[in-house]
């Protein structure tokens, strides 16, 4: 009886096929917004975007993501589920879906590199590493309505065929700062050379993600030092060290405040919250999800007569954001945390 019920329950969605709208709502809406209006992620519903990319581009992008550029990979989704999402995205436009010949384009990559530096790097960054920040306006003013994508990216290069890249160069992308290459005075040969250069970036990506993963795996989850001072002295030392690093102490409280009645709070667990608002503003512009780091904090604990100071390790946490730009900032924060812990306990 139970088996029969279970079989019926599980067969319903299988028989019906994946629901693209529901899958999009579950996996994509948080970043790309309702009906692809954009947010942390790019505005997918942009007509100029949908008419310039083929279904393969969308499919591989969903599957592989954009390593280091926020967009995660969705390898747990089945081919049918990804196809359903792609079909849903296509339903936003009645313009025809383009197709591209997969044959590679021949060109002079070295010459293309020079042209890229002159005409493309201003938005796409040196070596096509991408523009700063994430997505569109995102609750704060931005210089561009859309952030130029990273071209030197394993996910992008796997998704985009040479001829898709070429077509984008030729037509530009209406509604974004990407103008047709011909309006910049570039001819067919120039465009082919730029395509060859972008494709050549693939060879520079070998092992980069693996090295980053190994670095992440080697990072401790928590930074910790034992203090030779009393709890109260250590808290004061932490506060002084924080100010010495150009941060502002915003709050000192016991860990359990607000969780238990005042008379039951453990007084030997103290949290020092601190902030550098300029740095915070920069971090939010890079990735608005950094609230998960906030506020900066050091926790001082006395347990059985031993005082220890703890902090999270932003350098390790950054890995979870899939945002290389944020990683640099977080590694700097980790070094600052380590220095504060050392100064407060030595």
């Amino acid at each position, binding site marked *: 009886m139970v088996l029969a019920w279970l079989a019926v329950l599980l067969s319903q969605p299988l028989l019906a096929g994946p629901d693209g709208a529901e899958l999009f709502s579950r996996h994509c809406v*948080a970043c790309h*917004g309702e009906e692809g209006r954009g*947010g942390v992620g790019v505005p997918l519903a942009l007509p100029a975007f949908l008419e310039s990319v083929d279904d393969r581009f969308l499919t591989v992008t969903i599957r592989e993501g954009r390593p280091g550029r926020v967009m995660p990979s969705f390898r747990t989704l089945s081919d049918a589920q990804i196809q359903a999402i792609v079909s849903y995205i296509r339903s936003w436009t009645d313009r025809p879906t383009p197709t591209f010949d997969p044959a590679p384009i021949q060109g002079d990559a070295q010459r293309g590199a020079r042209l890229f530096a002159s005409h493309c790097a201003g938005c796409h960054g040196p070596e096509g590493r991408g523009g700063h920040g994430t997505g569109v306006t995102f*609750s704060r*003013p931005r210089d561009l309505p859309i952030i130029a994508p990273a071209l030197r990216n394993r996910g992008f290069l796997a998704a985009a065929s040479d001829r898709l890249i070429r077509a984008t160069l030729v037509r530009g992308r209406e509604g974004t700062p990407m103008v047709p290459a011909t309006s910049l005075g570039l001819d067919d040969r120039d465009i082919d050379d730029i395509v060859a250069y972008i494709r050549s970036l693939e060879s520079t990506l070998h092992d980069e993600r693996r090295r980053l993963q190994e670095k992440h795996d080697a990072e401790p989850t928590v930074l910790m030092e034992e203090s030779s001072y009393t709890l109260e002295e250590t808290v004061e030392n932490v506060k002084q060290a924080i100010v010495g690093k150009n941060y502002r102490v915003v709050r000192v409280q016991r860990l359990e405040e607000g969780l238990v009645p005042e008379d*039951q709070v453990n007084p030997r667990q103290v949290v020092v919250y601190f902030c550098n608002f300029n740095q915070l503003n920069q971090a939010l512009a890079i990735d608005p999800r950094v609230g998960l780091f906030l506020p900066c904090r050091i926790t001082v604990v006395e347990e059985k007569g031993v005082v220890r100071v703890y902090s999270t390790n932003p350098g390790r946490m950054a890995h979870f954001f899939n945002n290389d730009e944020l990683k640099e900032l977080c590694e700097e924060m980790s070094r600052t945390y380590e220095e504060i812990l050392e100064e407060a306990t030595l």
Partner: protein
Amino acid sequence: MRSILPILLLLLSFTARAEDLMMVRSTLSFPEAMVTLQNTIRDYGYTLSRVQRVDIGLTSFGFKTDKYRIVFFGKAEENRRMIARRPELVAYLPLKIAIFAEEDDTLLVAANPVKWLEGLVEDEELRIQFERWRNDLQAILEDVRRAEE
């Protein structure tokens, strides 16, 4: 029935997300989403300990920002038990959810404890606890997401 339950749980687990970050978009305005989030957190048996008003700090220093808050919450006894087992957890607790406005929508994001704290797993009790936190955070976010439906 007992033998079928693990199979059912296994099958259903395929629908669970394993992202490092758990993020949802709510079409509720920020104030409505904030109230819904706090009520939902309480519904799941947690105590709200504090709300950090990130936007207030930023604007007081002259930076432009929309509403941006961090909501802290926890279960005191659970936290004490886990910190006693793994003192390093003190750096991560209480749990938190970041909530911020994006034009008319509201975004909510939480870290997946199973991923973020995997370096601290040293026994079954910790692993189960991290999964419980992950499930609760996921359910809270999902409830807020569906609140307008």
